[in-house]
């Protein structure tokens, strides 16, 4: 197996406030290969966005990385200084956020925002900037005249695509996306997803895509990671997880979606609500809501166990396989 592009080891993130220590991400391990599309799904509050921002080194107080490493192309991003990070940012990995309306500076034209990004990293002529800007816009199907436009002058879908174009300015190896389709209607969602996948195949970058809606990435991601209460619940090939979800939570998530062509069956949700991460449940964090809970689930914290090519954090699989890695 070639060296992974990104290796996250034992990453923990907490929100440190006067009153409490909220452990939003708890010892997460994952790796992303070059050109891979990794989807990350979970409920609101499960820590997926926090994880993403932690990896991208974009956390703001009171959130802080409390332990772990984020090894990207051989460098631990957590240990880099701000200046060292600046060299890596955007050139090697870039970020796409949920709402382009909020992520784009309302007072600068699209072109100006492309320009300051390029100027921050290399000395280029105005001509080169304009050429490259037009190029990336063309990639996402936007006419170059819109370089002069301001964010509020573009439609929602266009804005989102402009943001993706900006992320591709230096053709980075990894693009981190935080729910970029959530603000769009289903038709625009589908069109954007297709475009992202096309660009990925054309330019060869890896994608980490966070969403709360599994159906959005079902057809596009190579691997899928299910997060619950700040931990990895299950991670494996998308196909495998969809066809045979192992973790009761993943099963619950998939059961909540009706199949368009399959037989009609009653929809079930997952009872209860996500735990308070300031005081998580003892043992397995999912046990209060689990339909297959066993007595040991209340006291033993499950490791990640390997079941064929999938890893799952559930005591149901404790006997059948070795722990994935001694963690």
């Amino acid at each position, binding site marked *: 197996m070639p060296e992974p592009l990104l290796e996250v080891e034992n990453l923990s993130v907490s929100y440190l406030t006067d009153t409490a220590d909220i452990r939003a991400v708890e010892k997460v391990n994952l790796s992303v290969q070059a050109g891979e599309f990794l989807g990350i799904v979970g409920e609101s509050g499960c820590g997926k966005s926090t994880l993403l921002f932690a990896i*991208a080194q*974009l956390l*703001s*107080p009171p959130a802080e990385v409390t332990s772990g490493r984020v090894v990207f192309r051989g460098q631990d991003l957590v240990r880099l200084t*701000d200046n060292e*990070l*600046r*060299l*890596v*940012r*955007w*050139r090697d990995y*870039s*970020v796409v*956020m949920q*709402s382009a309306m*909020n*992520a*784009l*500076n*309302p*007072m*600068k*034209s699209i072109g100006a925002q492309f320009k*300051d*990004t390029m100027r*921050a*990293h290399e000395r280029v002529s105005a001509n080169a900037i304009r050429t490259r800007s037009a190029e990336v816009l063309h990639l996402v199907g936007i006419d170059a005249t819109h370089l002069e436009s*301001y964010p*509020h*002058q573009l439609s929602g879908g266009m804005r989102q695509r402009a943001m993706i174009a*900006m992320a591709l300015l230096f053709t980075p190896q990894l693009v981190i996306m935080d729910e970029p389709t959530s603000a769009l209607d289903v038709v625009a969602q589908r069109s954007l997803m297709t475009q992202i996948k096309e660009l990925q195949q054309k330019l060869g970058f890896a994608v980490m895509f966070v969403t709360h809606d599994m159906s959005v990435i079902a057809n596009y991601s190579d691997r899928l990671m299910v997060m619950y209460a700040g931990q990895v619940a299950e991670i494996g090939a998308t196909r495998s997880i969809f066809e045979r979800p192992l973790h009761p939570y993943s099963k619950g998530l998939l059961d909540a979606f009706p199949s368009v062509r399959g037989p009609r069956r009653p929809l079930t949700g997952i009872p209860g609500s996500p735990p308070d991460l300031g005081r998580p449940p003892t043992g397995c964090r999912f046990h209060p809501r689990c339909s297959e809970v066993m007595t040991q689930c209340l006291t033993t914290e499950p490791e990640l166990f390997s079941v064929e090519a999938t890893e799952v954090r559930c005591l149901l699989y404790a006997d059948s396989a070795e722990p994935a890695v001694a963690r």
Partner: protein
Amino acid sequence: MKYVSRRVGLFLITLWAALTVNFIIPRVMPGNEATAVLATFRDVNPAALHALQIEFGVNVHQNILLTYVQYIGNCLTGQFGLTAQRVPVLTEIISKLPWTLGLVGVTTIIAFAIGTLVGVLGAWRRGGKLDGLLPPMLFIVASFPVFFVGLLLLYVFAVTLNWLPLSSNYSIGLEPSLSLSFIGDVLVHAVLPGLSLVVVTAGLWIYSMRNNMITTLAEDYVKMGRAKGLRSWRIMVDYAARNAILPNLTGFAMQLGYVLGGSILVEYTFSYPGLGYLFYTSTTDHDLPLMQALFLVYTLAVLVCVLLADLATARLDPRTRDA
């Protein structure tokens, strides 16, 4: 364009409202203030007397609407009547205007510069003991009544230390001229009043600016700036400060009314003979024509500044172009 026309409209309507307030007050307030005052006017310039009668509704036996229209016309042509000393109001105002303009103009610019710099930097560098203590300290100092600051400074620097003059805008006996020594004398006299104004105004602006900046720093596009690998100072200026200041420019201009009020009190405290001190003497002299004219002048000053801020916003904030 729609934005600009809306703001010009607001300018005109507020101006009209101020003029109308001036017209209504003498007619609505209990007592015969106006009549009493005007009764003392004898053997004066008939045109000026007539202007006063129209403004105050004394001895005017005609349709009130007609009077109103004539009054507005008078105001627009600068006919405000005479002061208690029988000097044309307009002349009196114009003679004192430069002193106040100088004092308030310079201190406002200084206070704005300090307020913006300290506020922006203070918000940018959060954390540490200073972050918890400085802002409320500033807010408290900003809420000190300006005359208290003035009196305190007077006591320390003028009375006790005798470093700076006690009052007035230039030493008694000096002839006004453009000579360096005269200008120096003027500046020395302006230090304490100016300092009082700067302390209170800057305090207020630091507080406002810091809060605006903190809110702006929480925005996603600032995070994006970081994500893109932009330099710290560029994010601070281009993505944060600009977005914190510009939408609030009009708000800052509206605070000018408070600053002007402060300048009136400062001029009174220091016996600094500008428009503010004139305002004060008009109350002791019960000089209604002068008082009401000064009210209009101060209102107009705020209106003009607000309009300028609006125009600047229209020019610099792209979101207003399509509003």
